[in-house]
């Protein structure tokens, strides 16, 4: 097979008039043309020419030196999620590139637009097991939307334009461009940068077929118990307003997946909570009672559906998605509305009748009341001496008024935060949803703080996950993003412990994790901090955290063996959700 067909003649023909630049400069020029402001990266041998060129771009491009390449890509993800723009990463060849893999997989499954540039050994050394050579393209193929190896600098402008276009368009995703050192050094006649808007073989969004929109509207108009479930597609499609107009006109109760959270304010009258394994009682049970299920920009993950053969079997399913391969992948749709929801939602809104489904909505409230009595009130207003994660989130809500970006890691604290955190603004819930990457939160929060500095960024992290990427405190120390860190310390790998308690006869196998003195660790990085274990200190300490100038770390000791409920145990249907372990 051939390499990418690039019009090399064109470049050479203009060589006389066009200025000679290096491949490295072409990369940075591409960044400027694409509006890149921040790069998260780490230098190394094979990417040195790019870093050398960066020396002269210091004023136009901000580079954040992370402490590990995994930190760079998670930061770029956090940046993308909070800002809605594409995150950018630099890493060197070999270990630098392999350290990106977790973040690529995370960005792939959570559809986050990220462009990674990796250095590679000289083209003539490819395949010789050269120092820090690794087959990055093949390693990253399953976890990138697109990847490409550049061995000739003349390819750079066109390849970078494609990279940004592919990463950000359609269903977004990570793109990796591997550039050999010779291409970075090579001088060529630079004819300028042209943004890419079209690739013959790539259809970012299928065209909307009106007939299906009409059929969907008809089903919604005839429905007695319609129920909307939405995912990150609403946020990625920048269709929050269109979505709100749609549910408000047709009076549709709407529940979010973990990735869709914050697309509409959590206190919206039609917002009925979170779906899934640790979601709310009502939306899970009533998924199996609705007559029309309208899925918007979500992919029916197994954590949302539970057992598929017991999932919404009674309902007619309308599935709106930009990615044709998601239609009928897990749940068979009655009407597939393929397309960008920014386009399909207004078409639907136009056709649906203005309605209210008061009695149906009431059902959600009834379940909410049950959940309140059996779970929520004890979690948010505990009577015991030890603090719960829920009461911390509740106190935080009162202080942030739902205006903050909340970045969470993975585990119990993530589920509790997503269950109870309140949001007023979109792009506020940054978490590793699909991949469940522990260690995501601290670097992602750094990225989010750079992505939208107008809002407070609060990172809520468990004692386990924090220890996975705590080296990024060094990045905070050096570059001073404003990150408010809350460690919810239960002295356990809590979620695994919960499963061991519930499903493995309480055989606690390696979930008892020792932690360093986090406050001392932070202090070592020049970040002030405090540890609390008493309820009376909670509110004052949280306001201290939020009002601190710059970053701050607050460790909060919480109950060791608290469990997250409700829960749809694995292998059960969504309607078989339980509110306590006694129901198992």
């Amino acid at each position: 097979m051939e390499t990418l067909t690039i019009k090399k003649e064109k470049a050479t023909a203009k060589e006389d008039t066009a200025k000679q630049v290096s491949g490295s400069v072409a990369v940075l020029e591409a960044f400027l043309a694409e509006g890149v402001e921040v790069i998260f990266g780490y230098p190394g041998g094979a990417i040195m020419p790019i870093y050398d060129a960066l020396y002269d771009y210091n004023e136009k491009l901000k580079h954040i030196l992370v402490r590990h390449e995994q930190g760079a890509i998670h930061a770029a993800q956090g940046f993308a999620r909070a800002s809605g723009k594409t995150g950018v990463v630099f890493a060197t060849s070999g270990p630098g590139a392999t350290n990106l893999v977790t973040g690529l997989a995370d960005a792939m499954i959570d559809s986050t637009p990220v462009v990674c540039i990796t250095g590679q050994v000289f083209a003539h050394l490819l395949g010789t097991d050269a120092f820090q050579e690794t087959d990055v393209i093949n390693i990253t193929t399953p976890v990138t939307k697109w990847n490409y190896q550049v061995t000739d600098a003349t390819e750079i402008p066109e390849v970078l334009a494609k990279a940004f276009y592919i990463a950000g368009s359609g269903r977004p995703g990570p793109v990796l461009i591997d550039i050999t050192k010779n291409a970075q050094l090579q001088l060529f006649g630079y004819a300028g940068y042209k943004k890419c808007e079209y690739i013959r073989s790539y259809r970012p969004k299928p065209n909307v077929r009106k007939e299906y929109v009409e059929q969907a509207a008809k089903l919604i108009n005839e429905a007695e118990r319609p129920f909307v479930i939405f995912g990150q597609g609403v946020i990625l499609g920048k269709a929050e307003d269109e979505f709100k107009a749609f549910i408000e006109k047709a009076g549709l109760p709407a529940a979010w997946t973990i990735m869709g959270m914050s697309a509409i304010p959590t206190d919206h009258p039609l917002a009925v909570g979170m779906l899934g394994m640790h979601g709310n009682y009502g939306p899970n049970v009533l998924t199996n009672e609705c007559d029309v299920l309208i899925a918007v920009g979500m992919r029916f993950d197994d954590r949302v559906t539970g057992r598929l053969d017991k999932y919404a079997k009674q309902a007619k399913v309308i599935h709106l998605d930009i990615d044709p391969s998601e239609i009928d992948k897990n749940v068979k749709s009655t009407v597939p509305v393929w397309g960008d929801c920014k386009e399909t939602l207004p078409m639907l809104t136009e056709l649906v009748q203005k309605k209210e489904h008061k009695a149906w909505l009431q059902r959600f409230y009834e379940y909410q009341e049950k959940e309140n009595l059996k779970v929520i009130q004890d979690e948010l207003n505990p009577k015991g001496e030890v603090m719960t994660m829920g009461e911390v989130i509740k106190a935080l809500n009162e202080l942030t008024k739902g205006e903050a970006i909340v970045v969470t890691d993975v585990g119990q604290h993530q589920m509790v935060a997503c269950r109870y955190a309140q949001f007023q603004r979109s792009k506020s819930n940054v978490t590793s949803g699909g991949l469940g990457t522990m260690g995501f939160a601290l670097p992602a929060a750094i990225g989010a703080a750079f992505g939208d500095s107008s809002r407070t960024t609060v990172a809520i992290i468990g004692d386990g996950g924090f220890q996975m990427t705590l080296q990024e405190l060094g990045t905070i120390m050096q570059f001073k993003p404003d990150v408010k860190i809350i460690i919810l310390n239960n002295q356990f790998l809590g979620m695994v412990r919960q499963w061991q308690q519930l499903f493995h006869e309480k055989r606690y196998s390696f979930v008892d994790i020792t932690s360093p003195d986090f406050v001392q660790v932070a202090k070592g990085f020049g970040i002030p901090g405090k540890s609390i274990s008493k309820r009376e200190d909670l509110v004052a300490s949280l306001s201290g955290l939020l009002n601190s100038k710059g970053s701050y770390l607050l460790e909060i000791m919480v109950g060791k063996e608290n469990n997250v409920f409700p829960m749809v145990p694995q292998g059960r249907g969504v309607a078989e959700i339980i509110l306590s372990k006694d129901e198992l």
Partner: protein
Amino acid sequence: MQKQEFTITVYTENHIGLLNRIAIIFSRRKINIESMNTSPSEVPGIHRFTIVINETEEVVKKLVRQVEKQVEVLKAYYNNNEEIIWQELALYKVPTEIIAEEVKVERLLRQHGAKAVVIRKDYTVFEVAGQREETDKLIKVLEPYGLIEFVRSARVAIIKASRGFHEKLKEFEALKPGSGLVKNEYLNKQEEVFSM
């Protein structure tokens, strides 16, 4: 739904790495590729993959969507064996002295439509183009006479209902910004054979 042989035809750009990108869609799901062939297509510069797998239609349909989702894939189709004309090429190396001595062998070869590609003093290479059963049969026939070497190519297939890729490509190229909208082609042709 029962498993059966499906031939997946994929029209792609001609790029390094795409073979791997397509292959891992199958291996990730632990699906064995029975045969895979890459070749040029009727359109200059456009590559054509022919992939054979044994699966249910439901699975094949999902796989084809995953294939088509790849940035450098233009279009993917799947067909059962009734919907295609297909061939494989087999080569057989046998000792020449047996061919010369035993008239029977010559007759057998003729019966199976074998052609001599090379005749040397020590061995002769025959080729047979046909379907799996036919080429398999000749192995059985030649084994007693000292079949030295055997090899068979991947399947190549022509879709009976296809009108070629030129028109489809024009449709795609019409999608370039500035030109009018084309209807959703996936949905329009849902019922036709020549679609996914």
